[in-house]
């Protein structure tokens, strides 16, 4: 078990390796294979360039989930743990910064959308780290392992809204409740309202988690 909140220690660095390998591979896949326009015109299948952004969103969220899960066993507690989790998520963003700058080539002049995307992915990863932390603390109190529950929650957040949005008569904006749907929507020029929905949903979950953590801190002090 990882008992340190240091970013380059033991298990933590493995998470960053996974993030870099996944983002690097996705970047390679996202670059169109065509070298001449005639290759673009010819019927063929190319992985869509949005693959990188989807992988970036999912893997950063998974990193947050893993760090949040590990944070329960750290030797820090309370708000310091929350601060450390935020720092670890931001450190992950720092490590993928070269990839993100590189990904501007996939956006064809729309690279200003990277800023809200990075902010959103950071917030999402932080949200999952807090959810994982709370589930881990609750499970520790009951002496159970929350691994399956954590990943079920992750799948619920990531996949379900996105799948739901593909169903007829379900408003498309539902996709923005999913980190993947929101990330893909943002790079395809989402509207201001869709941005607001995406940020508001993740932000409200973060606030709820922070409130929950604050209550548990008060309870701990009271005891």
């Amino acid at each position, binding site marked *: 078990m990882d008992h340190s909140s240091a970013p380059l220690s033991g298990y933590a660095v493995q998470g960053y390796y996974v993030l870099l390998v996944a983002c690097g591979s996705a970047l390679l896949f996202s670059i169109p294979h065509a070298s001449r326009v005639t290759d673009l015109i010819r019927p063929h299948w*190319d992985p869509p360039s949005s693959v990188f952004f989807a992988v970036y969103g999912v893997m950063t969220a998974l990193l947050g989930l893993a760090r949040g899960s590990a944070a329960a066993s750290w030797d820090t507690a309370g708000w310091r743990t929350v601060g450390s989790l935020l720092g670890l998520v931001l450190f992950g963003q720092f490590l993928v910064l070269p990839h993100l700058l590189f990904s501007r080539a996939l956006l064809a002049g729309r690279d200003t959308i990277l800023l809200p995307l990075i902010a959103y992915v950071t917030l999402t990863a932080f949200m999952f780290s807090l959810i994982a932390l709370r589930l881990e603390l609750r499970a520790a109190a009951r002496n159970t392992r929350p691994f399956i529950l954590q990943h079920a929650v992750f799948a619920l957040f990531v996949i379900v809204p996105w799948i739901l949005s593909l169903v007829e008569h379900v408003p498309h904006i539902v996709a923005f409740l999913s980190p993947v749907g929101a990330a893909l929507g943002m790079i395809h020029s989402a509207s201001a309202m869709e941005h607001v929905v995406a940020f508001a949903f993740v932000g409200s979950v973060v606030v709820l988690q922070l409130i929950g953590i604050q209550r548990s801190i008060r309870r701990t002090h009271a005891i």
Partner: protein
Amino acid sequence: MMAIGRNLYLPVVAGVLALLFPMALCSRTTAAVPTLEVQIGLGGHVVPERYAPVRVRVQGYEAGSPATLRITQTLGNPWRGTATIVQEPSVLIAVDGIYRTTIPIYDPLNPVFVTLIGADGSMLAEHAVDLHSARRLDPFPLTYGILPYSLSQDTPPPVNTTELPIDWWALDAVESLWISNAPPQNAWSTISQWAFAGGTLVLLTGSDFFRFDSPVVRRLLPLHNPILGTGSGLTGQLLGAPTEDSRTILRRDGVPLLLIRRHGAGHIALVTVRANDLTRDEIEMIANSVPHSTKLNLVDLTEAGLGTLRVIRPGYPATSLLSVGCLIALGVSAAIWRRSRGAATLVVAVLFVLAAVLSGLYINRTIPENSLYGFNTRLCLYTSFGSDIDTFSFVYTHPSELIHVSIGESIPAQVLTTAPQSDPVASLMPTSQAFPTQFEHAVSDGVLSAPITADTRKTFISCRESAPLLSLLYDSDSDSLVLNQGSGTVIDSGWLILDGFGFHVSSIPHGTTVYPLGDVLSVRQLIDAENATSVLPRLSDLFPLDTGAWFIGQSTTWSPLDEPEGQKVRLATLHVVEGVRSGPF
């Protein structure tokens, strides 16, 4: 009596003045309102997605600041959506008179509005032209002069002199042009240009030939030294030695009645008798024998050129290097972490900032501003009798989607400027050679790819430079081709061809250059030596390179277009020069 007259004089004068003053005022008011009379099309017919001449008669316009014309067309209908195309031809109106221009016809089911716009932008007059009944789906035969029998039931009535257009591409909707009467000499230039660019001209001559004989007409004829026949059965029939490239299609009593020769990309058909001497069957046979006009279609050539453009994207080695470099940097930092946390923090910060900077610097060089690629082909034709013809092909691609612009794909697009009267550059430009630069507002395959708004006119720019001067002469004495490149245009390479045999030249210097005819290859061998995207195969299909002297030059440049920024557009200019032979032609 005199007293009575004097007494009545003043009231009568006052009464007359009182009557005349309002009338004068009314007539003054009437004169201040200009009126427009507009004719669009040839013989009252237009064809969608073909050009049509526009004649506007302006009356009652008081000379002042020059006014301009605005032509507004509407596409579609309320059910499937409408879009408006506004064109402002470079026509400055200073006095009353007839003004001409040529416009592409988009959707003749809707009326076309022609508006006279004052210098201050105010609307002075407007005329709506209903083209609904004038609409033809296909090109049609056009006659100048009367035929004894109609070519078909729906052949439009003969056009008169004033209806003959001044732009060769205004004949775009004509399937074949039948001339049985002498047009004005200045009309021959337009007609011959149109024929060279793919039109079919039918000359009905006979004893009428000498009414419209001229050096230009002699160049067009498939006969050398034409004379009028005499004697039984030949009276009034035009005779002469057929040119090398002519074919006799029909005969009357063993004497050629219809001869056809290729003229550039088009055809000249000569009927050796007067129109009135033809029988109904003969007219029908001639109509069935003459080929239809073709458009100088360079779309396949343009597509091939588009396909050769490099896709602007980052390379795989650089991407792999980035990924591997980041992993190594993280590994190094993690290794240092075990010994010194402070040093590791510094190393990870430095390495990843460095990676980010290098990544940013690399990607700045390869970043595409948009995902559109365009290719324009400009074809400049120089005929042996001094006509310069420009045509444009235009094609662009979005990723995995190839889009043609049907209007203007083989004939010049329209010059459209927002304010020709205040734009000295635009006002100097001739009324051809423009192309849309905002692709999303283009018309693709006859279907509107995106809503066209009134702002569309701002998306068209003119791009024509001054016409380069190119001429070619075959000097039989020295057995050499003399090419005069008298312009500032750079021609990268080309081919010199005489009667189907020629050679490749890698650079064309300015000025006059003499090329001795030494080792020559057949056009077929020259084509085989070129790659699939070469212009030579396509142009050999369009022009009769096996007869006469020809120069084909090409130059390709990246088009320095300003908007939209970063657009990947290449402009290829082709020069096709029909040469002349020294001595008697």
